[in-house]
């Protein structure tokens, strides 16, 4: 795992010292709120509905056990004993008090973490495939590139005041688990005809009020050219981006208004200038960074105990079937620890759970931890012979839920339970969907399904790319939920289609049930997933199930 250089360390400490003084000056009145707000936002501190919220970056989703324990310590010392993992591979603390924030930032710096650039119009935390370095389908580990991008973008003088926030996602696998097409820049590793690795560069994706799938500006960028190329994109955006209108300021609008060809030409022209200037310094740095991401010393041991246990224990088998992913080493598995126990808040972990996960990572997982954009925790390297013991320990802590990739593995933003921008709640909708279908014992029969919920059009819950998306709105002072179907966040990314009029808070769970019963009726065979079925039959049967049934009921 990457360890801070002296430069990183000094920079983060200096920022903590600066912010500590800024908080002091706010508290003694020398700074007004208008002066202080941008300063606190630069350090990840928001004011929410009921309290402040501190957003801490987990660069490319990678975390050491020591860092996880420190997050638990922060949760216990200055918050309410839990943290919320988000779709941007951050953790949010929902209850810090302003005078305590400098101490929290200092505690984060002790474990090489910070909250810098988790807000504001700068390059945000770079997100990556949470299976990086472990996935069987991977061409190369994307984390060294992500770390290179982190170092380059942190405090980059030219890119601190972009027209709007800027989000980069990277995956080292052709199968996109990082939703690269919904980011300002998406980098997807591919091979060219000669078999060399490089990146497909996707620009101008984004969700929010104007959802767009990114466009490919380069089918193949040699990996050596990554940094000058990304800088060229930022540079073109910085010059062209609409600073006059917040709603048109994201690069997706710039790409849309400029046109793919014109913007590609501008990027290439700028790239030609920059490439020469970089002069190979980035290559040297990348080589150094790469050493920090060397694979762990994989154990070579028999796995028959795992096979026997898998056959014998149905509870373990159910968990293994949903929560394990193929590792590039056949003796190993990638374990997804579900933070979606039925009825719990998606993405929340208590401090006890964090400590246990840290212990388990040390005991069984080569001390490597990941946070996924789907709000779960990953142990990327677990030897199969350790899986039964690991599973037993997880179950005891309420972390053994076997639902990864199923209906109750829902992404939900904080919504109106926390967020000051929300127009409706999202967490309780997720909780009720999970418990309702658990009671019906239907989720395994329904199979792979991604439900994603946002509490306003900002789309932090990725609802546009959910197979079923739910958007909470305020319709004349009442919570109302709009449904979209057919969204997809993979390499075949699609924005979901609206079904029609929305549903009230107490109608949304029955509405989703009607959609899913229609799916069970019309699928060709159990292996046809909801998304495949939707692509085959289109919207009509689902609309009928949603609205005709409602009409009949109203008429009755």
């Amino acid at each position: 795992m990457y360890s801070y250089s002296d430069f990183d360390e000094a920079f983060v400490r200096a920022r903590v010292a600066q912010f500590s003084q800024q908080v002091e000056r706010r508290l003694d009145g020398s700074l007004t709120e208008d002066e202080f707000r941008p300063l606190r936002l630069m350090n990840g501190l928001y004011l929410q509905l009921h309290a402040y919220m501190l957003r801490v970056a987990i660069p490319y989703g990678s975390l050491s056990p020591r860092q996880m324990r420190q997050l638990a310590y922060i949760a216990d010392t200055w918050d309410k004993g839990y943290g919320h993992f988000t779709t941007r591979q951050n953790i949010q603390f929902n209850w810090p008090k302003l005078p305590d924030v400098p101490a929290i930032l200092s505690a984060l710096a002790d474990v090489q973490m910070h909250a810098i650039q988790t807000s504001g119009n700068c390059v945000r935390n770079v997100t990556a495939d949470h299976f990086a370095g472990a996935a069987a389908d991977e061409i190369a580990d994307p984390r060294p590139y992500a770390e290179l991008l982190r170092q380059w973008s942190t405090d980059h003088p030219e890119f601190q005041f972009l027209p709007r926030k800027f989000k980069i996602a990277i995956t080292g696998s052709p199968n996109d688990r990082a939703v690269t097409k919904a980011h300002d820049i998406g980098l997807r590793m591919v091979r060219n005809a000669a078999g060399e690795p490089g990146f497909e560069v996707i620009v101008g994706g984004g969700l929010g009020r104007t959802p767009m799938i990114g466009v490919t500006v380069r089918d193949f960028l040699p990996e050596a050219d990554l940094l000058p190329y990304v800088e060229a994109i930022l540079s073109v955006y910085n010059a062209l981006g609409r600073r006059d209108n917040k709603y048109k300021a994201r690069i997706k609008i710039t790409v849309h208004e400029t046109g793919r060809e014109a913007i590609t030409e501008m990027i290439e022209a700028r790239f030609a200038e920059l490439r020469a200037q970089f002069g190979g310094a980035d290559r040297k740095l990348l080589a150094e960074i790469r050493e920090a991401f060397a694979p762990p010393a994989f154990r070579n041991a028999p796995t028959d105990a795992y096979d026997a246990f898998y056959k014998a224990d149905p509870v373990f088998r159910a968990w293994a079937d949903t929560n394990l992913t193929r590792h590039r080493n056949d003796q190993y598995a990638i374990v997804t620890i579900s933070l979606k126990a039925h009825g719990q808040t998606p993405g929340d972990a208590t401090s006890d759970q964090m400590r246990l996960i840290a212990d388990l990572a040390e005991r069984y997982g080569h001390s490597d931890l990941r946070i996924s954009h789907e709000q779960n925790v990953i142990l990327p390297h677990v030897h199969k012979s350790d899986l039964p013991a690991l599973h037993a320990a997880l179950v005891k802590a309420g972390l053994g839920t076997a639902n990864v990739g199923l209906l109750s593995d829902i992404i939900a933003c904080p919504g109106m339970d926390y967020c000051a921008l929300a127009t409706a709640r999202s967490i309780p909708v997720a909780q009720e969907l999970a418990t309702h279908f658990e009671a019906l014992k239907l989720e395994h029969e329904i199979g792979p399904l991604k439900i994603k919920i946002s509490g306003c059009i900002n789309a932090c819950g990725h609802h546009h790319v959910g197979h079923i998306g739910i958007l909470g709105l305020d319709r004349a002072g009442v919570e109302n939920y709009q449904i979209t179907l057919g969204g997809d966040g993979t390499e075949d990314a699609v924005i979901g289609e609206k079904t029609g009029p929305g549903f009230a808070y107490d109608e949304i769970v029955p509405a989703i049930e009607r959609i899913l019963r229609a799916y069970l009726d019309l699928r060709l065979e159990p292996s046809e997933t909801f998304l495949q079925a939707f692509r085959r039959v289109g919207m009509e049967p689902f609309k009928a199930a949603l609205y005709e049934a409602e009409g009949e009921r109203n008429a009755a």
Partner: protein
Amino acid sequence: MSRRFTPKVVTANLLREGDVVYLTADDRWSPFHHEAELIEDEAHAQMRLLHANAQKLVVVGAYLADARPGPNGPEPTHFREVFRTRGPSNYPHGKQADLAN
């Protein structure tokens, strides 16, 4: 005839703790919505908001929220303001726990 003014309360978050508070008629900041001053007049509402905004070391983000009279004092009308009187719905945190009884 002028349009009827929807009654308001002044609400904000405490600068240090972030807690939701309401401005009372006797110039205190109360955690209870029902203790807020119910303002029935637009000009007076603007005066009270100015008064709130001047207290830079106590509160942040003061604004006027719709309210209506109730048996125990002003009640919120919009669901967002109802949630602000209680705290989140997924945990017994915030006012619903801190101020129980």
